[in-house]
Structure formats: C-alpha cells, structure tokens
C-alpha cells in the first residue's frame, strides 16, 4: 500500500490538518477500530471506513466534521468521499442529533400493530420526527466547528424517526434504540419509557418479550430449525452435540471439488430471493484466479422477513459452518458476514460465536489439522436496504457508497475487492452443513422438482402464531398460514397475503392453495422471494399497505439510476393519487403507473428498482375492484 493515497492528497491533507481534532471520546473510539494497525498500515484500508464511521457515531451520537477529518487523515481518504459514505446510511447522522434516537418501525407489519398510534405518542412527547438524513434539504453548515461552542448545545435528550421494517415482525410493534430493540410496544409502554428518558432515567425494565413461534411440518423437518431454541446459541459444545461441524468434517475429507459436487447434487438454490443454484455459483467462483472471497449476506431487510435474524440469533454456528464449507469449496482464505445494522442482537451473537469457533480451531490457520486456513470477519451495515443487493454489499464492505454495480461482470468473476466472490444468503449457508453431512442425494429428495429441500417461511400480520416455520418445498401456502401459523385469529378472513415482502406480490384467498415452490408460484405470477408471508385480514386498508410499500422503495432507492431514483418517487405519488380517488380505476393514472413499472423493471440497474413496482402492480389486480 502506498503512503500517498491519491495524487491530490498533499493539498487535501494540508487542509484537513487545519480541522480541529476530534473529542477524546471520538479519538478513543477510532483507536479501537485501528487496533494494532500502525498508522502507515491504515492508509489505503478503505474497508475500515464504515467501522470507523460507526465508532464515532456511537461515541458522540453523530459524525462530526472533526471526526470525519480524522478518519480522512488516518485512512488517506478525501473528505467528500467520507461524507458521501456517511450520508448514505440511515443510521448514521452527519449533523447533531439527540444521543438517544428511537427508530420506530412503521412498516407494513408493525402498522397492523398500531405503529401510527405509537408515532402519535412520540410526536406528542418529542415533536416532529427527524427526517432520514438522505431526504433532508440542506445540512452540514450547522455542524461545522467554530471552535467555541458545542454544536450539540441545545439538543433534546431524545429524538425519533420513522424506520423501515426492522425485521421483528413476529413480535412488533418494534423500535430500535441504540443497541437494543423495543418489542411488543403499546402506546402506554412506549409513553412511559419516553417520559422516563426525558426525565433522565433509564425507564422500566424490559417486560416479557412476545414470543417468536417456531414450527415445522413435513418430511425432513426440522432441519434448519432443529437446534433453534434447544441450544445455547453461542455454545459450541451444544452445537456439536446436536450434529454440528459434521458437514465441515465430511467436506474436509472429500476435498473441495467433491464438496461442490455434493452441493450441486443437492439441488440447493439460493434462499435470498434470486434462487440461483448454489453449487453452480461456487463452481463459477472456484474456477477464477485467487484470491477469492466468500461472503454471507446477512443484510436481511425485506419487509416481513426475519428468518435470517432468527437463525443468526439462535443457531449462529450453522451459518458459520456453512460459510467455512463455502470457503473451503471455493478456495477462499477469508470470508465476511455482513449483518444488517438494525440487528444488534444477531451481530453480538455472531461475534461471540466466531470467537468460540476460532478458539476451538474451527477457524484460523490449518483448520482441524488440515491445510485449509480460513477466517471470518463480521461487518455491520448502517441502515440501507439496497446493501442487501450483493454488489452494493461489496461496495459497502469496501468503504464505498452502497450503490449496486452494473453487471456483468458477475460477483463470481469480479466481486468483493474486485476478486472472484461467492456470496450466499444466511439460510442458504445454513442448508450447507446438513447437505454435506447427510449427502446431496438425501437432500435432493426433499421438496419438488425444481425446488429442493426445506424452506424457512416468515409468517406475520394477522395470524394467531406469527413466527418462522420450516416446510419442505411444495407445501401449499394455506398449510403454512392456517395449520402452522394458526390462520387469521377470531374468525377473521384472509383478504390477501403478501408473498416475498415489499418486492413480492399479493396472493388472493383463492390462490392460497398454490404450493410454496419456485415453479408453482411463478405460474401464478408470484415469487417466493425471501420467504415472507404477510397476512392481511378483511378489515385491513390495503391501500395504506400499498402506499407504505411505495414509500419504502422511494426511501430506500440509492439514487444512482434515474428510473429508480425518480421513478420510485413518481410511483409513490401515483399510488397516493389513486388512493385519494378511492382506488377506482382512473385509466390515465393506471396507464401511467403501468408504463412506469415497465421502465423501472427494464432499465433500473439492480433488483431494487426492477422489483419496486411488483407489489403495487399486483395490488391493482384487486384494489381497483373494491367499492
């Protein structure tokens, strides 16, 4: 790495050296990020940018100009770039904001649990919500130091903002506050807590958490849920006692090529939404020149989806073992787990589990006495749905803005750090150890012709037992919604089921017998996506749901390409307009929406824009008919 980061560095450094130093707290926080790295080793480590931004954000509650300038000096980065990255993420603030921020989920599931009433409570106590930074008009000037007074001067103790889905749908309404999650919120409990915080107290102790229902039905189950809830999540002994690390042992015994063949034989397809064959992905990456990387995509952010969170919190070693096997098969020495910023609990669990695995020789050099050396780093997102798009995720780890890349080239050719990379979803990786331990052929007899194995389904909304359920592919949607999740409570009826999250489609009551399988859902114009089923009863105002979905995409667009940046805003406006008109089909507006949908699908860079009109369009099938 060169000591001179870029040609204009001299000029930039001169300027940056005139910026006042950061506070001692900020400096200490940065020191923890640099760790043992000597100053000259930090230059060029752009991948430390996001961890550094997180550190100063947590130390001060926002990212100050002096702190940003200090990061620039250490990493050899221009200020404009650092600010560009910091201002990209919803959980990072580039101007002073209250130390205690309540990120209230008002997304499609929490809104069924009274998120609006909660928002009113917050509004009454705390005033207007702080805008997501990305959508504010102008900022910055206020945060510039004049050297005399603290920019935090008159800040209130507590602030709040609206948040997209926090992935707590089975136990909402939810709010993220610092490193903890408030769950099962009611206006009373939230109000009490906020009043305590405003008085400077810590507030009432955590009430009993609403449960996460786990269940399964059908051949082969429980496979992924077998250990969840039965073991201490960070106990390696518990994990091994229930079959853990047998998959890795088998892989190490048969060699990388045979490992890939075993996964190919299993017919395992990706569980993140795109359903790409996992074995083929690994084979494609393995044939490129080293160094290669493997990445676990734990940026689960699809509204209504929380299965990855449950796996990471309840059985983290299964994912770690899966990623280790992937690293072995692909020929990588390093893997990354990118955990969504809104999952503090999952992050902590994974960090602990990795330490345990390392201590026991399941990670590090010469794993289990073989020639295979491999280690895993955890990275934390900072509030951006788009970073679940794999190339945006690479950019985020690398310290760039989380903007998706044009493809080709594909990640298996040019991925993380521009190297060949196999990136897999959490659930996909959790499938790998049993595939290796019990054989690809055994796995392939579960499920349907084109959808092999078992699937985790997140059921939320108007059901008696919201939770994560495991079924072999091919089980009808109805079985999951009614038999496992208990159906609509108190004699209500299903109005519609949103399948696949905000990027998915609505299923009507008469379509609930569709089997949960890639091919069967395709046949009715739907897709399994991330495996989320959000159930809406007949009293739900579905227009409000559709409008929230449209707002979600507007808020989460990265802004890089025109069809998505402006198109998602225009889509939101069209939905609002249609809703105002009572939904009765205005052919002009509908025509415009359909045209826009086609252009977003055809011309957007990534899946976010391409799928942004899915749910909206599918709702028009029935919303226009409503009286």
């Amino acid at each position, binding site marked *: 790495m060169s000591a001179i980061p870029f040609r204009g560095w001299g000029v930039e450094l001169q300027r940056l050296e005139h910026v006042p130093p950061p506070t001692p707290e900020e400096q200490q926080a940065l020191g923890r990020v640099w760790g043992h790295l000597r100053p000259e080793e930090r230059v060029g480590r752009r991948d430390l940018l996001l961890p550094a931004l997180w550190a100063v954000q947590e130390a001060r509650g926002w990212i100050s100009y002096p702190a940003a300038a200090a990061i620039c000096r250490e990493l050899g980065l221009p*200020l404009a770039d650092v600010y560009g990255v910091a201002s990209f993420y919803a959980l990072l603030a580039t101007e002073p904001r209250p130390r205690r921020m309540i990120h209230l989920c008002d997304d499609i599931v929490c809104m069924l649990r009274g998120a609006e009433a909660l928002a009113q409570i917050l509004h009454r106590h705390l005033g207007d919500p702080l805008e997501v930074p990305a959508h504010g008009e102008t900022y910055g000037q206020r945060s510039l130091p004049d050297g005399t007074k603290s920019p935090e001067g008159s800040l209130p103790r507590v602030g709040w903002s609206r948040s997209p889905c926090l992935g707590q749908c089975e136990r909402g309404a939810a709010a993220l506050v610092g490193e903890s999650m408030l769950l099962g919120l009611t206006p009373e409990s939230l109000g009490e807590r906020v009043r305590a915080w405003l008085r400077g107290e810590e507030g009432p102790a955590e009430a009993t958490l609403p449960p996460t229902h786990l269940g399964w039905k059908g051949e082969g189950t429980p496979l992924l849920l077998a250990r969840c809830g039965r073991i201490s999540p960070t106990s390696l002994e518990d994990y091994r006692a229930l079959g853990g690390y047998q998959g890795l042992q088998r892989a190490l015994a048969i060699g990388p090529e045979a490992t890939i063949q075993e996964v190919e034989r299993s017919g395992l397809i990706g569980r993140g939404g795109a359903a790409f064959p996992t074995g083929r992905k690994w084979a494609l990456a393995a044939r490129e020149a080293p160094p290669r990387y493997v990445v676990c995509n734990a940026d689960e952010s699809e509204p209504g989806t929380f299965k990855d969170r449950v796996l990471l919190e309840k059985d983290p070693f299964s994912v770690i073992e899966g990623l280790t096997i992937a690293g072995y098969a692909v020929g990588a020495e390093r893997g990354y787990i990118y955990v969504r910023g809104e999952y503090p609990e999952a992050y902590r669990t994974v960090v602990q589990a990795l330490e345990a695995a390392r201590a026991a020789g399941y990670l590090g050099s010469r794993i289990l006495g073989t020639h295979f050396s491999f280690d895993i780093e955890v990275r934390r997102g900072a509030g951006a749905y788009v970073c679940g798009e794999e190339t945006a995720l690479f950019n985020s780890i690398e310290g760039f*803005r989380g903007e998706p890349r044009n493809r080709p080239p594909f990640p298996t050719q040019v991925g993380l750090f521009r190297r060949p990379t196999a990136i897999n979803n959490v659930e996909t990786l959790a499938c790998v150890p049993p595939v290796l331990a019990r054989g690809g052929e055994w796995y392939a007899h579960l499920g349907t012709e084109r959808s092999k194995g078992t699937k985790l389904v997140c059921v939320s909304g108007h059901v008696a037992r919201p939770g994560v359920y495991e079924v072999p592919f091919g089980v009808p949607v109805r079985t999951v919604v009614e038999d496992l999740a208990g159906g609509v409570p108190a004699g209500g009826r299903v109005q519609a089921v949103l399948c696949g999250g905000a990027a998915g489609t609505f299923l009507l009551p008469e379509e609930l017998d569709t089997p949960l399988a890639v091919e069967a859902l395709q046949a009715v114009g739907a897709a399994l996506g991330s495996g989320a089923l959000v159930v809406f009863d007949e009293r739900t105002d579905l227009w409000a749901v559709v409008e929230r979905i449209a707002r979600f995409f507007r808020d989460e667009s990265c802004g890089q390409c025109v069809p998505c940046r402006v198109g998602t805003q225009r889509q939101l406006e069209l939905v609002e307009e249609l809703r105002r008109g009572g939904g009765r089909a205005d052919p002009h507006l509908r025509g415009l929406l359909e045209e826009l949908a086609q252009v977003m699908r055809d011309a957007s860079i990534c899946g976010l824009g391409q799928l942004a009109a899915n749910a909206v369009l599918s709702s028009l099938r029935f919303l226009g008919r409503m009286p």
Partner: protein
Amino acid sequence: MTREVQAPLVTVEVDDQRVEIPEASTLLQAIRAAGKDVPTLCYHPVLEPIGVCRVCVVEVEGSRTLVPACIRRVEPGMRVRTETPRVELSRRMVVELLQTSVDTSLAPDVQRYAAEYGARPERWQPFAREGFRTRRAPKVDNDLYVRDLDRCILCYRCVRACGEEGQSSFAIAVAGRGLGARIDPGFDLPLPDSACVFCGNCLAVCPTEALVPKTQFEMRRAGTWDERRQQVVTTTCPYCGVGCKLNLHVQDNRIVKVTAPLEDPITRGFLCVKGRFGWTYVHAGTASGPGSEAEPSTPAGTL
C-alpha cells in the same frame, strides 16, 4: 516501425446489421460502428462509462431487462436492437423523469432527446410533488464558478473529472441517498473551504449547466449570454510550458469562456485554473463588459 497488435474481432448484430468489432468494445462502440447511435447522458468520451442515467438502453436478445449500451461489453453473436418500442418507452420515460425532477432548460442533450422521443413531462404535473417545487438558490461561494444543483441530473461526470479520471482532487462526491442524493464537497462546505483547486474540469463535463462559469451564469441572468453570437478561437495557453490548446469563446469581441478541445490528446478537454479562468487580464483596462475585472457585468448585490 510500429506493429499494431490487433485485438481479436467479435461479430455482433445491430438492428440486423452485422458488425465486426474488437473484443472488449462496448455496445455503444458497436452501435456507432454500425452507423447508428443511441442517446447518452452520463457517458462522456474521455471518462470511463458508468451506466447510471439509463438513457442509452437497448434490447439484447436473451436478456430479461434492457441493457445500457455505454458500459456493456460485446459478446460474440450478440443481437442488439436500438429502436424498439420498449427501448423508446424507457428512453422517453427517463427523459421525463429528469424533466420532472430538475430544471433541464439549459441541458441541450436532454432537450434534444425530449423532442426526439416525444417526452411529455406535463402529464406528471398534476400530482407530482417532488421536483415541481420552489427552486433552491444557486450556490455562489467563489468568483470562478457557480453550483446550481437544481439543474443537476446526477450523471456523476463532475465527480469523475474531479477524481482519478481527471484532476485527482477528489473534492466532490455524491452525498445523501435516493432523491436526496446530491453533489457535495463534504458537510456542504463552501468550495473555497473544500479540496477544490478550481480547475473547472467539473464544469467542462457538466451537461446541464448545474456547474457553470460565473461569467456565463451572470450573463445568463442579465440576458446577454448568446451562443449564436459567439465564435470559438483556438489558441495556446500562455501560462506554462505545457502549451495546452485553448478554445476561447468570444462574444462581441470579448472572451466570455474558455474551454479545451476534447480531441486534444494532451488535455482531453481538461485544464488548470489558470488556463480555464485566468483570461480576464486580456480585457483589463478596457471598456467594461463581461469578464472585465474592473466592472462586473451585473451590479454587485444582485446575487
């Protein structure tokens, strides 16, 4: 004697016409080699393509979505269609989305494509909120150029010209996200407090006058900017030994702007602060007019 190394050729079909083109060429190059063209906005001949504006999309047989021609590499046997209704719908919509969200009145390319594809931005007007609102004031924080971000279509050209593909100053980047994304020197700093060295290469590549020399900005405001009355005179920069080729834009016998020809292999259109802005001395001591140091063309205090 030099020996040219020939890259292997790839055959592709552009609107049923076969083209042979070196491998690693882009679809845009293939399309142009076939004597056709597609519109482009974020593409700039001296910068690497990034494929973000999506106005150059074409249909490629077998591809689920449309494909940006500027950045996609040719593959043997590719069949490309540049003029289908699907392609035209996307181009028209991209132009409309730009027209409804920013002021494109000084963006000649956007205007041209709007006419060519029959864009009707007004059909969004009745309900569109964002974009049809009060304009933010242009940022005038230095004597050399103005940032009028309500004209910015986020083509990233300025960011690239400021960074490693041009000046290597890295003074500006895209900040924020989604509709709130904008070009920013960091913390919304005024340019003189930023890493900007005022080479003006960002304005040289800006297609919309979101970045514009102050002279031009002021003459537009005064209603005196008139490109039909301008001539371009090519000369050599008088400052240093490099001898960059300059294009002086002259109106009424006075220099009103300086650019560099893109085709020049030395500058590729890029200049330094002296070449681009250091010409006002030419008119020093003469009668007042645009660019005169003695007397600004607009009364002080109007900006």
